[in-house]
């Protein structure tokens, strides 16, 4: 029977690291997540990782596969070249155990950009707010983020400055600014124009390349910047 070798970078609860290899029969599994479950069920009960929906929508199982961040559930074994697969926890996150990483800091950053519609008439819900299909498509792509953290692992700035807000939170800021139902643009621009905001981005575009859901955070960040430039110009001319 044909086998695949999974080389997994493991970390125990005390922070000791080791690399362990497992042979998984190729015809028993079709994705990396299935392979991990196979290992956990049959070969090594102590392997730890996060997983849930197995259809690339819940964002649990982001990890580094063959050196790049991917969702384990949607990475099919057919798409991997060669017999050997290396699996490691997501970069730039603190490892809890094996492949499970601490995403609390990431969610705090997300929370920091006020990722919800801000309206003066909040609390009156007797009809919808009109939104044409054109307005709808202004933000739709940015609303597809599953908070998996892959972009945070791909971003080179996150690697050297852990305080940088990062691609997903900034994309979320733009997602709500671009939504015509929202009136919170000025609050959000103030947050993202701070020292740890858009100015840290150098447009490597790795977040966009890595995103499994086709969100384009690097584009969103540049949009935020141009909005800020626009705002500054307005201020300049108002002063005169």
């Amino acid at each position, binding site marked *: 029977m044909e086998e695949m070798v999974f080389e997994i970078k493991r970390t125990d609860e005390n922070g000791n690291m080791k690399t362990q290899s497992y042979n998984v029969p190729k015809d028993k599994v079709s994705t990396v997540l299935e392979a991990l479950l196979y290992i956990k069920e049959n070969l090594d009960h102590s392997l730890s990782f996060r997983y849930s929906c197995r259809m690339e929508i819940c964002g649990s199982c982001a990890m580094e596969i063959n*050196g790049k961040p991917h969702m384990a559930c949607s990475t099919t074994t057919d798409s991997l070249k060669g017999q050997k697969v290396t699996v490691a926890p997501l970069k730039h996150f603190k490892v809890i155990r094996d492949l499970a990483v601490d995403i609390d800091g990431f969610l705090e950053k997300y929370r920091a950009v006020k990722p919800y519609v801000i309206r003066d008439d909040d609390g009156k819900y007797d009809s919808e707010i009109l939104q044409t299909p054109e307005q709808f498509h202004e933000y739709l792509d940015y609303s597809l983020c599953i908070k998996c953290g892959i972009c945070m692992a791909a971003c*080179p700035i996150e690697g*050297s400055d852990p305080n940088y807000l990062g691609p997903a939170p900034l994309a979320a800021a733009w997602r709500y600014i671009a939504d015509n139902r929202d009136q919170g643009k000025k609050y959000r621009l103030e947050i993202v124009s701070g020292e740890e905001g858009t100015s840290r981005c*150098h447009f490597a*575009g790795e977040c966009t390349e890595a995103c499994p859901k086709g969100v384009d955070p690097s584009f969103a960040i*540049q949009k935020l910047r*141009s909005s800020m430039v626009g705002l500054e110009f307005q201020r300049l001319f108002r002063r005169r």
Partner: protein
Amino acid sequence: MNEGPLGWAKFYRKGVGYFAFAMHRLSGLVIVFYLYLHLFVLSHLLSGAATYNSLVTSITYGPYDSFLVLDVLLALVIFYHGANGTRLALNEMGIGLKNHKVMFYFFESIAVVILGVFLYYAYMFIGAA
């Protein structure tokens, strides 16, 4: 967790945007380094025209003329950095965002052309004298 600047140097399986980013930083560092070198050379003016002239001549005509190769590299780095910087400035103002990769190649092509012109005149300058 924190990779540090060494992380930039990993190009394996990364996109062109990443290449542009990492090279932009490296070229920036080289340019800063050159700025100090430049100031160091200029500071010889304090010791009078003769000292300065002999230093410049030694670099241009020997015995230290191998430095000229570095000058060519410096020009490469500056034009790269300038071209990419122009692209980034435009992108950040929202211009040409959808085509930022094409723009990278476009601006770098311009940089190569300017570098060619520079090299031609530099050669003429040395060759003529």
